[in-house]
């Protein structure tokens, strides 16, 4: 599996190793592909945010780059009409369930959604799809951070940090469909959960859902 190969992304020739995941190869070579849920080193990728689409020569439909191993002679385009259309729709869908108001968001200027909007020239407002505005409650019971589900994009980065890095098991996904949410056992407050406030989940959050409190 360690064969050296050459692939082409957006006309740029890249030397890499066969079998690596395309998304990480692109990012390591300064080619940006939008992504939220991808976690390097996780053996079965989530592939849930549906933002990292690219087109590969020889395939008739866009594929997610987080699931695509590279092979010799692969020719990749990160910007095509088909890719842009899917990314735009996925992004607008995520925004339709995301409380905007960047100015008052603790992650303002440090937010992956803002980055995607900037890179792909997408609007940070609700356009085609109306804002769902579901009722959620902020959990600010921990001393050092708070959790605002209305800004959560369900990427799963925090759960990975909690389960695999911190090895605590305070949070997980619950329910399904539109109700899918990051939750504690029995929806109890984080203060009452096994959370140790190590902060790893907050650091992992790409958006403003988990944020440190200002004066700690």
């Amino acid at each position: 599996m360690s064969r050296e190969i050459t692939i082409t992304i957006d006309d740029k020739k890249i030397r890499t190793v066969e079998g690596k995941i395309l998304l990480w190869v692109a990012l390591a070579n300064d080619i940006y592909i939008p992504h939220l849920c991808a976690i390097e080193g996780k053996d079965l990728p989530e592939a849930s945010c549906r933002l990292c689409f690219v087109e590969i020569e020889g395939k008739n439909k866009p594929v997610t780059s987080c699931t695509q191993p590279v092979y010799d002679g692969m020719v990749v385009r990160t910007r095509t009409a088909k890719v842009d259309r899917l990314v735009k729709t996925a992004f607008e869908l995520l925004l339709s369930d995301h409380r905007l108001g960047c100015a008052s968001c603790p992650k303002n200027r440090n937010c992956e959604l803002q980055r995607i909007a900037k890179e792909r020239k997408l609007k940070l407002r609700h356009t085609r799809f109306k804002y769902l505005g579901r009722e959620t409650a902020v959990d600010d019971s921990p001393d050092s951070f708070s959790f605002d589900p209305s800004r959560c994009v369900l990427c799963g980065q925090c759960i990975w940090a909690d389960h695999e890095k911190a090895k605590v098991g305070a949070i997980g996904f619950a329910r399904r469909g539109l109700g899918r949410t990051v939750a504690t056992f029995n929806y109890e407050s984080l203060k009452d959960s096994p959370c140790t406030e190590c902060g790893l989940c907050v650091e992992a959050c790409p958006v403003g859902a988990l944020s440190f409190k200002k004066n700690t």
Partner: protein
Amino acid sequence: MTAAALLEHYSKLKEEALKKKEQEQKQPLIMVGTASCGIAAGALEVKEAFLKEIKKHKLQASVQEVGCMGYCYAEPIAIISKPGFPPLCYGNVDEGLVKLLVQSFLIEDDPCYEYALVALEPNDIFPTFSDFPRGVYEHKIIMEHCGFIDPEEIDHYLVHDGYAALAKVLSQKPEEIIEIIKSAKLRGRGGAGFPAGIKWEACRKAAGEEKYVICNADEGDPGAFMDRSILESNPHQVIEGLAICAYAVGASQGYFYIRAEYPLAVKRVQKALQQAREKGFLGKNIMGSGFNLEIEIFQGSGAFVCGESSALVSSMEGKMGLPRHRPPRLTSSGYRGKPTVINNVKTFSYVPAIIRKGADWFKSIGTEDSPGTAVFTLVGKVKNKGLVEVPMGTTLRQLIFDVGEGPPDDKQFKAVQIGGPSGGCLPESALDIPIDFDSLKEAGAIMGSGGLVVLDEDDCMVAIARYFLEFTQQESCGKCTFCRLGTKHILDILTDITRGEGTMESLQILQELAEDVKDGSLCNLGKTAPNPVLTTLKYFKDEYLAHIMEKRCPALMCKEITLYYILPEKCTKLCNVCVGSCPTEAIFTREDGIKVIDQGKCVKCDNCRKTCPPEHDAVVKLSPAILPEEGGEKK
């Protein structure tokens, strides 16, 4: 182990079964169809009534429970075999008919032909299945014995060459079995039609000793119930198919993944597994061949998405039933990360017959690329509802109008919904396409698991699309963006349209979003979820436009833009039936005696329209929701 030794072993078991059967046939035998649908229609009461009458008259006759033969519209069904007569099938049996049959037929030798539906064996007195249009088109392979044998009695299966195929394959090389299935071009009946032989081969060739075979009986499509029916009517056939697959791929552990909503299917499979173990068709060293196989049941917990193979495996591993990206395919990394074959109930059901009769026999039925038969649940607005098995290539028109005899009450056929929430709605103009995996896909529907719902002039196509999207939206696992949020927005737009609040702009967004959800979703649930929308937009756009432009539901089905109205010229003034039938007291009597509906109170339950005596027929539905006299719009 040699083929001869296996055959001898098997022949002994079959011999015993035949003897038992002969004994049974010496006296009259009454078989009552007790699959879930039969039981719901009162089959258990019918069985009790037969037992009671037989006891009362001190007759020598036995009563047996059998499965479902697919004639659901005539449930409860009973079959009476009496020496000297062809076996006769009676429909809509109740206690009165039971008494009559026992007295006239069992005691006095008068079979009461006026109540009989059909004879089961050729004879010169009474017509058989092949004398009816339905019988002409039907070709039963996997339903052949359903409804005619006791599913809880392994000997009944043995009599019909049950487990002969297993005995046959155990002396052959696994590769030879895979070759037969490949050559038969057996395609998976779970929906997409992936060739079973290729799946088996991939699993066989995958590295590792530990492998699994799983029967997917997580039938969740609303409107489809053939998997339940087969498991309840002939579970051994599925077990045998699964066992042959396990031998072919090199697995020694198999599972049935059955919905918890199907308790009777679970019970019958459980019993069948136990009997198969007792006879030595399962367990260690099967029929002396050295092949070991254990099969267990796993009960699904009510998540439609678990019909998707990777989600099914995930739930068996004690996790949420979330699909994952493939590859890796399940044949290389499935249950417990080991190579796994997952096939549908029907797919496994074909296997014993293919092994016994050969790949060429199988290919002689159906079409070149989709050989064999298709099993459909024919429901909705059609006279003969039920389970039907027809050769692939039969046209939809034959199925709906010849087998099903079309919509009842002289209503106009409008569309047929095929393949459940993942399928689509096809109009009259598409009825001549042959039923096979590829033709249906081309038309925008899919074979799916075989649910077929016939719709007539009273069914609104926007409301149907909305219904399916409501289903997929509720059943979405929520993992990926397109399915979780995309189906929600599609549903919201459809809801607006059914309320008369749609716009041309939202119709455009609907089309774009449906296409993107199809292309962008992670798994097949999401990828196919927009099909009901895309096909209705393609074939019934005029109905969308009527809702949007005129606030009119052509089928008078969408409540928000339809109202109930009592025609003054037709109302008799004398009867009070509608007033009494109204659950919300919305109907009152005007000074002149005419009944009037208070639109503010009316909940549009349809009770008054149903109860108004047919000679008056004074209650009508109007859309757009505008009252004729005042001419003003009312909500």
